[in-house]
């Protein structure tokens, strides 16, 4: 792996050096530096497009659940602004063809800000900030957390494409997550009387530099990425939950965890077409990461013995409070190599094949506290973190190592039997090895796939794909996986099109389980089944009216047969989710200056667990609206818009507590009066 790493780095450095060496003799390259100062008078405002909205929101029911789902508020919003500048002088034209500044959703939870600069055939530069506010107020749900945080993404890219020279690109991205998570109920024994606040403060960033060029008929892509992650979580008591038992919260409980990961990633791709018939792509990716972490705090919760059979807290001394302190270092290295080929055997037949190898090794050194007699403080094998005891003893270094290696091969033929019918046949093989706490050891999966694409007449298209593979573990077949995709498209008339899709995945016996006290692996009595049926109609009865209707029935079912009580009996049960989804659209262009669009989405969701109570949960989500656009007669390119939107969420009350309650329901009317135009 080290040799590959060195080679990749060397090739990358040499390639990057080639660019400025060649560029010295080219005037346009000098001139095209995007950071060069521009005389602003050399630019003129070419066009401005905007949309302003005045919004009114009315919510009935649970506002917290509405905020979690929609989170749009009253007020004036700048929904969109695009300002485009173009050069006015020859000199400026040499540097710049286009400058565009864009804003979107300003004042809403998803604002975006963007600047693009372009000189066609020379460079493309852009900076962008996008934000998203996340609010989670769980209403009458069983989750006792609330969240309020913002993800901010800042990105920059510069691509230089001088004619006849290698493309050079550089990009940088930074993601911040800031806010707070709050545990709102007394799940902790030590400080049950306080809200537990956890400020969120995490940053990840990456920078990539690379080049892309062709030489001697070979196409090359080389890139190096440096990325990093830092996170710091400090949980501590905050406001009192009630008026009783309020003690001194300061310094009594605190849990602090830090994590970091720095990684370098090198990529090389080479592409070549031989004789217009043989297309080969070689791809190598090598990543090496080092990280560190530290933990100082508690695991703190009541144990089961603290409760009586009615769920009442009766014994506050029965806790699983454990002080945990540890620290360590991580190494995370990986390599992916692949080679894919396509051979054009004749004008009707392609042969695709490929090999892909991946290798991962995660190594974690961490420190645990041992007593003087050499036994770990934590005597349970499962408790791999450590905490100090009574002050005696010493820290010892422990290690966890995880290694995974996978080889994949595929060969696939694609043949046009005639102008109407194409057939595909393929073979797949995967071999995988795991070492470490996770994974089944060594497994192989192989099987075949078939496909047919049939156009019996010009207006009908049928597409069928089928795959069947078997998984073997240590030479014994443990699972059979089948996938089927079938699609029919029929243009009944010029203005009427019907589409139907069916997809089913069935993983029989291949469910991967990790149960307490049992080794992780595949369990043959388990099954996973995913089934989706979709039907769509698109109809244009008259030239100015478009109608669309889609319906989908989506089911996911998991069957488990597992018993951890040692009795040898199997408790088979099924978890199932079944959602019916509907979408309608109608667009009507009444005249040149008036149009209307109606849309509606309705989702009926339900799920169940087949156990002694046969629990089930049902809800309905409806989102529909009408958008009207009317041109203002006395102005060019100015429209008044009216967006009417109604959102409803409704849970079906259940006999089983918290499996559905009206307390979570809400309905909201969102009305936006807008002004949209350009000049």
């Amino acid at each position, binding site marked *: 792996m080290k040799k590959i790493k060195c080679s990749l780095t060397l090739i990358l450095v040499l390639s990057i050096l080639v660019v400025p060496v060649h560029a010295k003799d080219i005037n346009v390259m000098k001139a095209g530096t995007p950071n060069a100062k521009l005389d602003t008078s050399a630019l003129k405002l070419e066009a401005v497009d905007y949309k302003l909205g005045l919004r009114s929101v009315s919510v009935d029911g649970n506002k917290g659940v509405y905020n979690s789902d929609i989170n749009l508020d009253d007020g004036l919003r700048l929904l969109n602004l695009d300002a485009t500048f173009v050069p006015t002088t020859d000199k400026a034209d040499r540097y710049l063809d286009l400058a565009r500044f864009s804003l979107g959703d300003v004042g809403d939870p998803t604002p975006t800000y963007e600047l693009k600069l372009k000189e066609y055939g020379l460079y493309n530069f852009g900076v962008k900030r996008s934000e998203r506010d996340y609010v989670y107020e769980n209403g009458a749900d069983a989750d006792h957390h609330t969240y309020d945080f913002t993800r901010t993404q800042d990105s920059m890219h510069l691509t230089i494409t001088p004619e006849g020279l290698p493309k050079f690109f550089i990009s940088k991205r930074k993601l911040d997550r800031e806010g707070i998570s709050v545990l709102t109920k007394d799940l902790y024994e030590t400080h049950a009387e306080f809200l537990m606040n956890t400020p969120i403060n995490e940053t990840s960033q990456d920078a990539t530099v690379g080049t892309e060029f062709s030489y001697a008929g070979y196409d090359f892509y080389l890139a190096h990425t440096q990325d990093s992650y830092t996170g710091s979580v400090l949980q501590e008591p905050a406001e009192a939950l009630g008026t009783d038992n309020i003690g001194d919260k300061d310094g009594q409980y605190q849990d602090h965890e830090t994590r970091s990961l720095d990684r370098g990633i090198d990529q090389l791709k080479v592409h070549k077409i031989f004789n217009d018939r043989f297309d080969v792509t070689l791809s190598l990716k090598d990543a090496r990461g080092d990280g560190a972490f530290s933990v100082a705090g508690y695991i703190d919760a009541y144990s089961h013995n603290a409760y009586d059979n009615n769920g009442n807290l009766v014994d506050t001394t029965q806790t699983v409070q454990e002080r945990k302190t540890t620290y360590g270092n991580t190494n995370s290295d990986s390599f992916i190599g692949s080679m894919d080929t396509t051979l054009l055997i004749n004008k009707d037949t392609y042969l695709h094949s490929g090999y892909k190898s991946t290798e991962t090794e995660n190594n974690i050194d961490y420190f645990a506290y041992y007593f003087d007699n050499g036994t770990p403080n934590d005597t349970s094998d499962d408790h791999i973190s450590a905490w100090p005891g009574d002050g005696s003893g010493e820290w010892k270094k422990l290690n966890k190592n995880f290694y995974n290696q996978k080889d994949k091969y595929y060969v696939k033929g694609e043949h046009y039997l005639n102008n109407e019918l194409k057939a595909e046949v393929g073979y797949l093989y995967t071999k995988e090895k795991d070492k470490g706490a*996770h994974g089944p050891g060594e497994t192989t999966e192989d099987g075949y796939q078939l496909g047919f694409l049939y156009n019996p007449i010009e207006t009908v298209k049928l597409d069928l794909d089928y795959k069947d593979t078997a998984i073997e573990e240590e030479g014994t077949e443990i699972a059979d996986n089948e996938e089927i995709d079938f699609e029919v498209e029929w243009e009944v008339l010029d203005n009427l099109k019907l589409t139907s899709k069916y997809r089913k995945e069935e993983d029989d016996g291949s469910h991967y389980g990790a149960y307490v006290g049992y080794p992780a692996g595949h369990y043959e009595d388990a099954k996973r089944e995913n089934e989706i049926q979709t039907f769509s109609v698109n109809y244009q009865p008259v030239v100015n009216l478009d109608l669309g209707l889609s319906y989908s029935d989506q089911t996911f079912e998991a069957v488990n047969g597992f018993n*951890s009580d040692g009795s040898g009996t199997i408790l088979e049960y099924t978890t199932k989710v079944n959602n019916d989804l509907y979408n309608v659209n109608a667009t009507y262009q009444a005249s040149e200056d008036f149009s209307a669009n109606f849309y509606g989405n309705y989702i009926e969701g339900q799920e169940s667990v087949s156990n002694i109570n046969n629990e089930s949960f049902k809800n309905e989500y409806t989102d529909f609206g009408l958008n009207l656009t009317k041109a203002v007669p006395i102005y060019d390119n100015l429209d008044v818009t009216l967006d009417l939107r109604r959102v409803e969420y409704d849970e079906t009350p259940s006999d089983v507590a918290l499996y559905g309650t009206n307390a979570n329901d809400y309905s909201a009317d969102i009305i936006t009066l807008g002004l949209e135009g350009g000049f």
Partner: protein
Amino acid sequence: MKSTKKVNLLLSFSFVLVLALAAVVAMPADVEAQAKASEACLSCHGKVKTQFQFKRSQHSLNDVNCMDCHESHDKKTTQSNKATLKMEEPELCYSCHEDVKLKFAQRNSHNLESGEMTCSSCHTPHGGPGGDVNASLKKHTPLAGRANDIPNETCVSCHAEKEGPFVNQHSSVVAEEGCASCHTPHGSQNRFMLKYQKTDTLCLSCHGEVKSWHYYYLDANPAVDSNAAFTTDFANCTNCHGTIHGSNEDFMMLEE
């Protein structure tokens, strides 16, 4: 690198090369190399990294070619900012993937409306290495371990805090479908885009049995038969198992 891996790598490359050479030798000299509608475009655009894999992509295998999504150079009638696309994402993608459009209509989904991200933030419509449907994802990785052909790298490129490695790793993050073991990124009726709407139903789909004391909250029959309902606080497993993606602190991934 392990020696067996080197042998496998060598054998595989040899296999592909032998196959290719055999076919080239056997091929008639006057073969016409224009079977697919994309060939003309790829003669130039195939030199760009993003198109290296197009001929083997799911789109190409299903006869979706360049001109199905793009206009030609001299016919840029679209308002799309992006590479002569016939229309903006996600509408362009929805025009074939109606089932995905319906998924995004659910109660919670990644936000495509604001332009914060698009379909191609995660997917590469021109294909990727590996020859299967996962090759349409933008990034592939073995970084999170066993789930090395699934989209973990795509997900953690934004959700970096979930990546680890952790001393105590939740198996589902590194096994089988990785992040998609629990999440449905195209949309869900659950706030966290879980496969199931109720968190405990999701957990039960793998953890068929849990220690019986989790059921002491039952209103009636708090039996040791653990195949029973969770209620009240225990109805949300992450109330206590708050570091469910992985923890350096506790093997049960209890809240710090």
